[in-house]
């Protein structure tokens, strides 16, 4: 058995390793920028400004929200490939209620805010319910079940408008993507914070959260312990779908139109954030703080590489290498 001191050290490294990695990455990007300043190429260090840091948070808000739902699914030993498509479908449903071109204006404000929000959240949750029932009742592998939803939801998105985007959205609705609270905090960043806070409580403080870990760790043992595994799995996918709806609202409001191709391959960034954050695709292991920093690391990397003028195809290579590296380090540390 390990001695107490040793195990404390090990745990704290696991807990803070991701934060250390994040700070190291920030320091690296910042140092490169500083060199450019000293060389006289740039007047100021553009990376280390409040505006830029806020921009990074703004940029990761959609992926961050998707990654929260993905964290629950991955801890339950599953995966949700459909989040990007469900985001697009929810966004399209929201936009169909938020556009002035329909000409219907019964109670303008309510109509342009409440209906789009409800439509998106309901659509997302419904897609999640279908995923969840297929996984928990029909015992289909999550990869397959959600791959089906990835295709179906994308098709539905196009079917809603016959393949056309919806634009001319109401300013009330657009506030969710472009508004600022107290003229400083972007609304998507506030939503990101609220989603993380509520999800953290759900995962760490409720019976449901404990059950998600138990079901992902060993479904059979969870069942013998009296956990209704079918219901836990179903709700996990409903939650992920619901958050795809939230992300759909924000992305649609941000871009000002609902595109049929919105959110394409977003599931990959969400999975990347969760995996960099230390969750195991085998289930039973993962933390929301890890996911948050995982999303931040991806955000800082995208932002830093943009600032430094690195071409996007190199960005993709670097990101790919980083994900694999993160998992290698994590599995070495656990061995």
């Amino acid at each position: 058995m390990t001695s107490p001191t040793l195990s404390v050290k090990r745990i704290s490294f696991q807990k803070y390793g991701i934060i250390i990695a994040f700070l190291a990455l920030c320091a690296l990007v910042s140092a490169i920028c500083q060199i450019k300043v000293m060389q006289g190429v740039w007047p100021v260090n553009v990376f280390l400004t409040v505006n830029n840091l806020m921009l990074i948070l703004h940029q990761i808000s959609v992926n961050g929200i998707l990654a929260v739902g993905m964290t629950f699914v991955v801890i339950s030993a599953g995966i949700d490939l459909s989040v990007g498509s469900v985001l697009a479908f929810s966004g399209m449903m929201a936009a169909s209620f938020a556009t002035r071109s329909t000409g219907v204006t019964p109670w303008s404000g309510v109509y342009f805010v409440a209906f789009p929000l409800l439509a998106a959240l309901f659509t997302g949750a419904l897609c999640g319910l279908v995923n969840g029932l297929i996984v928990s009742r029909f015992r289909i592998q999550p990869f397959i079940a959600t791959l089906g939803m990835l295709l179906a939801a994308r098709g539905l998105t196009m079917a809603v408008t016959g393949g056309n985007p919806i634009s001319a959205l109401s300013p009330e609705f657009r506030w969710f993507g472009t508004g600022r609270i107290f003229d400083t905090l972007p609304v998507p960043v506030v939503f990101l914070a609220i989603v993380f806070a509520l999800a953290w409580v759900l995962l760490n403080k409720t019976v449901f959260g404990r059950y998600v870990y138990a079901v992902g760790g060993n479904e059979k043992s969870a069942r013998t312990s009296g956990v209704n595994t079918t219901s836990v799995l179903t709700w996990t996918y409903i939650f992920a779908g619901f958050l795809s709806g939230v992300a759909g609202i924000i992305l649609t409001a941000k871009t000002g139109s609902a595109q049929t191709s919105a959110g394409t391959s977003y599931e990959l960034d969400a999975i990347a954030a969760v995996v960099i954050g230390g969750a195991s695709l085998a289930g039973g292991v993962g933390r929301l703080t890890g996911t948050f920093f995982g999303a931040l690391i991806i955000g800082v990397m995208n932002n830093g590489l943009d600032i430094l003028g690195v071409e996007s195809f190199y960005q993709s290579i670097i990101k790919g290498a980083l994900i694999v590296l993160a998992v290698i380090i994590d599995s070495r540390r656990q061995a």
Partner: protein
Amino acid sequence: MDTPRLSMRSIQKRFGGVKALTDGNLTLRSGEVHALCGGNGAGKSTILSILMGFYKPDSGVIEIDGEAKSFNSAHEALEAGIAIVQQELSGVPQLTVAENIYLGSEPRRRGFIDFDTLNRNAEELLNRLGFDIDPRATLGDLAVATQQLVEIAKALSHSNANILIFDEPTSALGEKDTQRLFEVIRELAANGKAIAYVTHRLQEVFTIANAYTVFKDGETVIEGKVEGLTREMLIESMIGGSLGTEFVKDNVPAPATLFEVKNLTRAPYFRDVSFQLHGNEILGIYGLVGSGRSELLDTLYGLEIADSGDVQIEGRPLTPGDVDGAIRSGIAYVTEDRARSGLVLKASVGANLALSNLRFINSFGMVQERKERECVDLAIRQMHIRTPGPEEIVSNLSGGNQQKVVLGRCMAVGPKVLLLDEPTRGVDVGAKKDIYRLISEFTVGGGAALMISSDLEEIIGMCDRILVLRSGEIVEEFKHEATTQKDLMMAAI
């Protein structure tokens, strides 16, 4: 006397704190079918696993044809001429019979598998063995008995295999196939192979074997010729002298019925099972693997649904298939295999201990963390769980302490009836005693326990009454005072 084909002497093996084998001896001669007998955990599978190269012995000697050997892998054992016919079907159902037989040693031509030679070789082998099996048939399409014959052919496909191990080969076979298999085994022995034959069916020892070795508690207790051996002598040596395990048993059964099972049937596992469990009572269920004992407990707990029959606790019927309802009515279940169905191994000790109890200690879905901590601390103290703390991951604990975590999780909900399936399997002596003490305390405090055990000494030492389950039916009931290990085993076999 000639040199034996195989001689294993004074083999010792420990797993963590558990001594699996303290003095294992086995001698196999050419032309001999040698039966290995003994209860679960007696050491048969451990010594065979060592012979197969799966484990390295801590000490002891292995000689083949008088030459000392030590195997670092299953491959090395195979090279030395040792082949096994697995108990569980281990073939690849999607591949053909021929592909299965030569899996890993396929004949090749220019880098590709030479299917013509493959099928021809398989056909020759099967003909030689007298098995009427098409080498081109897909394994998964064949009957289980036929698949078992393919396993045998596979073991014999290694031309130099001189030592053959049959691990309960008839468990999946019917009468006719069993007879056919025996013919094959006799023929192999006549051709000079040395054969080790593991079985739980004592009758088979007399039908097929000419020599035998009995294992008990990790030791070889007796070896000899089957000629002149009687069934009674064999059973007595399997039971042997008591090791003197200390049981803790202070409960006195009350007359009132706490838990009742009426005519419960779930085909094909058990039929028409009825019994009553009284307050403060420990009721044992003895039966061999496959007698339907674990399936019975699964059904009582609601993990499976019975075809017909009733289960009542304190006079109220339980809803079939409702685990949550069973827990709320006061039933807890310690399953047979803690790693598979008892624990979340990668979660912490605390998370496991509180898991069943979370349904009671929450307000509107929020875990009451103070109560959770109290419940976990209490369980660690009561169960004497040796852990650095509640945050420790369960898989880092020893087997005995893991088992105490399962018990702790079950006891945390305050059950009235405790279902126990092999509660001391793979547990060291110290932890065993702790578990006996817990069961005793629980029943003294008004609870009742229903306990499955393959350990004769344990079931007689702990239980007030013992039901014997054979092929899914209760065939006999014994009272604690008037039971001998011999009676139990006679009834069960």
